[in-house]
């Protein structure tokens, strides 16, 4: 069936499936015969297993058994959501029914629209981005990940960074790639064909961030540049689109995103 489970670099596993770009997803353009991976990630840390997002519900039969198989040692389980949207939280409760989640990390639960009352009732520790906090925040004790608020976003979004592997979890940004078949590996490396062009990246980015052509995008480009200059980013792991692995691939896609922001925004 679909591209399911990929080991990224020993400690990070990519889980999920792919969807046809036939108009079923509002975040992507219609591209006949092309597909897009939709992903969540499992990080195995010495003292905790960390999930970044949980996949879409239609991939539940891929994701839940894989997570259950991987997390069987009773380690502390942290689920981090980049956004509180069904795209990211789609299998949260199904996973929790099989593998109890110990801690849920989100941008905020002070926003009462995020409905985790059933998790709260089961005494899951809730960690939210602290109100009035500095630009970034550390998840886990001992620390496992950096969490920071995304400025280039639609709804409230946090990005996570794993310093150990240099992996950035960028949610719906850097999600501008697609693949030729549902079985295609959801990963672009320096040795795989990267068919992404300015035009294809532009189409994906504008499908989601509909306001860019009406926007002063310079501050967003500045913010993205700062994210990358402050961290050694070797891999970008978005919630949809391919994983981008290796410094040259990361640089190429960073430049594509910056180019689209600069050329498609207002001048």
């Amino acid at each position, binding site marked *: 069936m679909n591209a399911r489970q990929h080991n990224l670099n020993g400690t990070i596993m990519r889980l999920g499936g792919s969807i046809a770009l036939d108009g079923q997803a509002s975040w992507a353009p219609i591209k006949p015969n092309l597909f897009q991976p939709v992903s969540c990630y499992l990080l195995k840390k010495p003292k905790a297993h960390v999930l970044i997002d949980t996949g879409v519900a*239609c991939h539940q039969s891929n994701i839940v058994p894989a997570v259950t198989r991987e997390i069987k040692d009773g380690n502390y389980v942290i689920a981090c959501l980049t956004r509180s949207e069904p795209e990211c939280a789609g299998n949260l409760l199904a996973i929790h029914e099989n593998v109890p989640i110990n801690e849920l990390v989100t941008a905020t639960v002070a926003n*009462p*629209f995020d*409905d985790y009352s059933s998790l709260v009732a089961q005494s899951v520790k809730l960690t939210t981005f602290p109100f009035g906090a500095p630009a970034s925040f550390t998840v886990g004790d001992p620390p496992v990940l950096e969490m920071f608020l995304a400025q280039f976003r639609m709804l*409230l979004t946090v990005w996570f960074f794993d310093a150990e592997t240099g992996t950035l979890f960028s949610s719906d940004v850097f999600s501008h790639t697609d693949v030729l078949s549902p079985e295609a590996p959801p990963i672009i490396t320096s040795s795989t064909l990267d068919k992404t062009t300015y035009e294809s990246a532009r189409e994906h980015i504008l499908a989601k961030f509909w306001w860019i052509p009406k926007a002063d995008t310079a501050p967003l480009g500045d913010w993205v540049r700062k994210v990358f200059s402050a961290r050694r980013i070797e891999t970008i792991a978005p919630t949809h689109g391919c994983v981008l692995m290796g410094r040259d691939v990361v640089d190429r896609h960073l430049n594509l995103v910056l180019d689209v922001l600069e050329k498609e925004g*207002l001048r």
Partner: protein
Amino acid sequence: MADGQGHKYERNTFPREIAPNIFWFGNCLKISVTAEIMHIHLNQFLLKGEEKTLLIDTGMPRHWDSLKAQLNIALGGRSLDYLFPTHPEVPHCANIPNILDEYPSCSLIGDVRDYGLYYPETRGRALNVSIGDAVDLGGLKLRFVPAILKDLPSSLWAFEETHRIMFVADGFAFLHAGSQNPMLDEPLHRPGECTLTSTELGSGVNVELGNFIIRAALHWSRFVDPDRLLKEMDELIDEHKPSIIASAHGNIIVDVDHVLPMIRDMHHKAYADAGIPGRKPAASRQSA
């Protein structure tokens, strides 16, 4: 007003009948921000046509029992034929499974992308519409129009042509009081104000607060040129001339001409005060 079962729709309870056969349902979220309990509107609307019935938005799963009770009162024994979630964000769509379970012949209608991914059980029960399409409910007709003030790309607004009501989802959150907590990205009002229309509320619109909340809830408003956006909004309002604007997150606006300029001000301020260095005021950008 009263229905055939003797129910009275009063101004201080939900459901409130805001025009003949059009009902305002509410489940405010109650939160304590500072010492004060604040409310966030989370509205749904039922259109009860002579032939078909349609619900706009779903609220949160935690409110399902309350929504079901309000539906039972307003439907008066009829079934629900259509559910129109304005966009696939939790407060607007998360009760889809509960509603489709409760009403086995109900179909989703609207821009129905994403729901097949999020709620696979809805596949085969969803009717996709295009902007300009209308659904005739018998005596009521709902036309789908572009969402101007929105977050997710598949958001839709809709206009009921008989009573001239514009349903605007995340737009026009009509504000009276609120919190300054930037982590709360939804608009607030005070207890007791839940079911009031804009002219029944005692206090005026708080433009400062409105500006703040627009920046928080519609984050892109810090970057988008308000003149371009408001021009699209003016064109839509001019075309349809609504007598009521019904927002998912605010009190019902019945004095549209009075409130529109305030909403415009809020969007101008949200952009101008976004704290972005070197930005020219919006007005001079337009003429440049």
